[in-house]
């Protein structure tokens, strides 16, 4: 078992003919992901890495029964791509794209919920179930199958921790990057709930950062609903207030969203906190 994706995942790649889309399609195929279709309007009938390209998501889904999509489309077109995928009946949409205006995500977020679909991201590295399926851009070779579930706001920070876990012999059930934007489709709590209900996952690693209060709500959720041990790290102890640290959501505003308050919330709710990302692999 695992969460969200596995060997039954049938993937549609939106923006497959672009530089990023084509490159990562190749990577995902090499990992063993079942990439069944690609989408670029006006390029229907072509093939990328042997994958058939369609003009619309509806055509792609009708022809291939794709059930998951990944988006490598530029920021100004990505919100429309999310809606197109959901409208075509895709139940899991993973949006890698960074730089989407946050206001554009407001109606899109609620549309996805209304249709009963799930969005991961935007501004995320995607997710991976080791040995079964990879959707997004996480380098596959740093993971190994196992029982640790990983959920994170960040890309390379996830790699750092996963790599340390793998080197110490702790494999992963699924690793999910939920994204660093202020409005994201899937929250820490959503993923914690999935891990709690996944028999394969025995331990959970949660990686957060400054900005907003999602980590605090997640910590409270852990105390109330998660029986599996949870380990965490919060990035940004040295971040100054009022400055955006790369991610659109990573900003301390009005004195709220600091690393110190999140670390405290983790500890107060029984989450063991690593002093550095690699230390997670030692305390687990």
């Amino acid at each position, binding site marked *: 078992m695992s969460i969200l994706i596995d060997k039954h995942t049938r993937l549609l790649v939106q923006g497959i003919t672009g530089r990023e889309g084509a490159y*990562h399609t190749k*990577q995902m195929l090499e990992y063993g992901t079942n990439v069944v279709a690609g989408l670029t309007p006006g390029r229907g009938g072509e093939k990328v890495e042997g994958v058939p390209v369609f003009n619309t998501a509806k055509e792609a889904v009708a022809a291939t029964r794709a059930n998951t999509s990944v988006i490598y489309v530029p*920021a*100004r077109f990505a919100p429309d791509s999310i809606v197109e995928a959901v409208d075509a009946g895709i139940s899991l949409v993973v949006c890698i794209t960074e*730089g*989407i*205006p*946050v*206001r*554009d*995500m*407001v*109606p899109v*977020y*609620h549309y996805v919920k209304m249709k009963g679909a799930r969005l991961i991201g935007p501004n995320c590295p995607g997710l991976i179930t080791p040995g079964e399926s990879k959707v997004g*851009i*996480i*380098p596959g070779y*740093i993971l190994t199958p196992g029982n640790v579930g990983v959920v*994170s*706001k*960040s*890309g*390379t*920070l*996830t*790699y*750092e921790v996963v*790599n340390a876990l793998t080197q110490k012999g702790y494999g992963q059930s699924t690793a999910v990057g939920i994204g*660093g934007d*202020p*409005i994201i489709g899937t929250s820490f709590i959503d993923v914690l709930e999935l891990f709690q209900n996944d028999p394969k996952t025995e331990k959970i690693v949660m*990686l957060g*950062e*400054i900005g*907003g*209060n*999602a980590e605090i709500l997640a910590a409270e959720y852990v105390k109330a609903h998660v029986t599996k041990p949870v380990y965490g*790290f919060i*990035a*940004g*102890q*040295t*971040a*100054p207030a009022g*400055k*955006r*640290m*790369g*991610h*659109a*959501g*990573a900003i301390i505003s*009005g*004195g*709220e969203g600091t*690393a110190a308050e999140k670390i405290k919330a983790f500890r107060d709710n029984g989450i063991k906190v690593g002093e*550095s*990302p*690699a230390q997670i692999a030692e305390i687990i």
Partner: protein
Amino acid sequence: MKIHEYQAKQILSRYNIPVQKGEVASSPEEARELAKNIGGMVVVKAQVHAGGRGKAGGVKLAKTPDEAEEKAQAILGMNIKGSTVRRVLVTQAADIAKEFYLGVIIDRGAKGITLMGSSEGGVEIEEVAKTSPEKIIRVTADPFLGLGDFQARELAFGMGIEKDKINGFVTIAKELYRAFVENDADILEINPLILNDKGEWQALDAKMVYDDNALYRHREAEDLRDLGEEEQAEIEARKAGLAYVKLDGNIGCVVNGAGLAMATMDTLLLYGGEPANFLDIGGGAKADKVTAAIRIILSDPKVKAILFNIFGGITRGDDVAKGIIAGLEQIKTDVPIVIRLVGTNSEEGRKILEDANLKSAETLAEAAQKVVYVAKERS
């Protein structure tokens, strides 16, 4: 992107939100002229992005044009939280009968656009949130329908606005919401929003921040950018497409990925070092970006050492190593550099670095300890 009060007020007046007559001056003489034209009592207000201008002495009343010149003389050149005042807004003084707060924000929790109103105007809303949170009324606009009149009325009644002033308030709230949406703001607030002695609504102060990700569809906003408010290095970084924030420490950091960049800075702190900056070099770490990153970091004279922390995922370690060497050929520096390279092709990368006599490390802990050590040695 932050803008100044006078710029935010220009935007508000385009939405028919009443603001007082006023203009900006960059010299005391100009301030005098403006005061004369406005007539009567004026307020001279420092135009800087930092908050707390009043407390810092950057807002003064003036009864006559002479006095306006005098006050402007005192305020211009003043340093408010690191920003030098180069402009003042000279505006009609208002007779305040009642002060309110009205703001629009992106609400992460509600996943929407939320209006906040309070009868506690004129003080920072964060302060009100701490001392009397029950005095903040919130309504979240419908994601598809926008802000309803009834929602603006809910705010008004919740804020204790008198019956005959409600329609005027509803118009302002709806227009403020429209201004927020149409300009892709991150924050737009009027504080205080007042009723004057004649019972008229006026926006006495305004604050606005644009969503950086939406600036591509607001070309006009580029003219509102005040480069004087930014660190030179931050301007350079933006041009080079690097996310950079200057800090006070002495160890420069170059990292791929925002989360890992913050974690790297935290690790320096853990080993007794102090980061000089946040810098996310992005995916490729090609020579031109490396060059730009090193140049920007070295423009800070406090920097005693630089730490590179690159986790090669899609990026190949040998490519990054070549980028670093090519970058260093263009910028000669004697500031020691420690490079931690891991991930795809990292062994090849480390070999390339060693051949070029560059210190490399395998783990972040090892690299952090090394760089903290050399930085201390040179301090």
